[in-house]
């Protein structure tokens, strides 16, 4: 199987979560997937630029997609919020020729044109839909059978479901999502069922409403712990920042001691595929990962 994608890394993977980019590349190598980095791409605006200047955010996101189109490669993302903003841009432009023309008028000034020819999916769904869980299972060299793993889905991969279903063959339910659970099972781990797995971590109000953010993250972490989780896994680096880096603040807000390692999705996969802790950047996780 030869799979090749244009990887839109987003900003965090190149800054505060270097372990995400490292582990993504390590997993791709193990699975024989070729990733071409979109070094030209800019920030997606993270839903905040969208609050300030909607049209500008459309132009910038369309430009990012243009570079995947130039390579004629399907685009993949490794951040739920990058996925949301890129997918929202694509859907709006594809469905509204007048808007697409207005955006292309600007892109034309720098010699680019958005055509709408490539797909945009999160790495998680590309793995499931193109590579296949069965094939991942065959590559497992270190089964995670002794570990209880709590999947934390992250809002922007599952809601709004209409957008998600538009781009993915996996018709994930926003109420009872299963993709991460299925992946955990394929790695022979035990997936933990808990109420907060499809809830919000509060990342987007970290600065202006830290109490809200800490409360939401804390509630999710505590719920996972109370259901016997040894570790949490998330496909979103923004959720990861809240659940891992800010775990101490979240614990303080909810009045509980919390010490739960939180892995990025490719870190978990990499563990099962036999990657070394160094290859997965486990030393960058703030809450020590003591399972390995």
């Amino acid at each position, binding site marked *: 199987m030869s799979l090749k994608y244009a990887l839109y890394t987003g*900003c965090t993977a190149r*800054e505060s979560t270097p372990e995400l980019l490292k582990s993504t590349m390590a997993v791709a190598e193990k699975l024989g997937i070729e990733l071409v980095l979109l070094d030209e791409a*800019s920030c997606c605006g993270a839903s905040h630029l969208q609050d300030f200047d909607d049209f500008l955010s459309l132009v*910038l996101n369309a430009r990012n997609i243009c570079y995947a189109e130039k390579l004629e490669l399907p685009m993949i993302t490794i951040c739920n919020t990058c996925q949301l903003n890129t997918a929202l841009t694509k859907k709006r432009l594809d469905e509204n020729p007048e808007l697409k023309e207005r955006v292309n008028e600007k892109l034309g000034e720098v010699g680019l044109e958005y055509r709408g020819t490539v797909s945009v999916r999160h790495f998680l769904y590309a793995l499931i839909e193109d590579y296949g869980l069965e094939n991942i299972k065959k590559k497992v060299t270190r089964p995670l059978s002794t570990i209880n793993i709590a999947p934390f889905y992250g809002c922007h991969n599952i*809601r709004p479901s209409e957008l998600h279903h538009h781009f993915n063959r996996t018709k994930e339910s926003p109420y009872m999502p299963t993709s991460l659970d299925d992946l955990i099972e394929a790695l022979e781990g035990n997936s933990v069922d808990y109420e907060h797995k499809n809830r*919000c971590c509060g990342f987007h*109000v970290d600065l202006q*409403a830290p109490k809200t953010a800490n409360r*939401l993250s804390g509630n999710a972490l505590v719920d996972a712990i109370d259901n016997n989780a040894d570790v949490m896994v998330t496909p979103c680096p923004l959720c990861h920042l809240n659940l891992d880096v800010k775990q101490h603040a979240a614990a303080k807000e909810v009045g509980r001691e919390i010490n739960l390692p939180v892995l990025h999705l490719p870190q978990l996969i990499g563990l099962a595929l036999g990657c070394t802790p160094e290859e997965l950047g486990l030393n960058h996780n703030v809450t020590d990962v003591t399972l390995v």
Partner: protein
Amino acid sequence: MEKTKVTLNVFRFNAETDYLPHYDTIEMEVSKDEVVLDVLNRIKWEHDGSFTYRRSCRHGICGSCAIKVNGRSTLACKERMVDMIELFGNELTFDPVSRSRAIKDMVVDKSDFWKKHDSVIPYLKADIDEHPESENIVPPQEAEKLEEADYCIQCGCCYYACPVVNEANEDYFGPAALVKAYRFTSDSRDSAKKERLQIVDKLSVGVWDCVKCFECTQACPKELDPMSKITKLHNQLFEEGVAENNVASRHAVGFKKSIEKHGLLDEGMLVAYSEGCAVFKHVPEALAMWKKGKIVMPWDMPKSKNLDEIKKLIKISSTAKF
């Protein structure tokens, strides 16, 4: 007719007599044309006459019959039982939209919802000519700006699905009141646009406390996409020059500044620009991150390739001012 067997766990509570709620387990067969409200009726008629819930129009207009099915906000008269079974299987749990606000069974005290609804001036403010010589015409392109926000039926599905309201900050207006605000800030006849925008601009109650989780958009039975209305309110705050200069507005604007400089986001600069002097409260966190190699030094800050393109696009495509 084909029937499906379901097991229902039904929340029962009477605030006047009960200390704690309990669940009744009821088994029944449902047909494919039955909606959730039909089943609520059958629970009352066939199992327990004291079972209490709100309902009126049965046509998705009055907004009174919202409950939660397996935690999902559900307008009982709109959703078919077969669809609930497809989503959640044959064992279904019926709860009121908010367990903590339950008065009796499915009936909740919705006064918090209405109090917030009232906070956003939920009515048209306009000078009315009492002796008009012609009709007051709103052209279609003006009416379209409301984006169907006036179709909201105040059922509370979005509000009681909002995690901020439910778990973190009781003062937050929540999606329904903000949709109501948008319904009037987008109405060309209204004269209180700025006043209303100032209300939703306030930290801890207004739009800046939305966590962007899309639970409201997922929950709305009228498919009004409340989340997009909250985004549009943000846009209007800047368009009308109402947005106060604070940590939240600077956070939104900071993205543009950073992208202009690096293409990518300069995370450290964004926090510093947004927080101003208060940036010092992030020092312990920054230290923990630095120890783990999670802080990029300014001189190592990555930049997008072809940054000139990005700079030019920002110059020619910007539509907002701060």
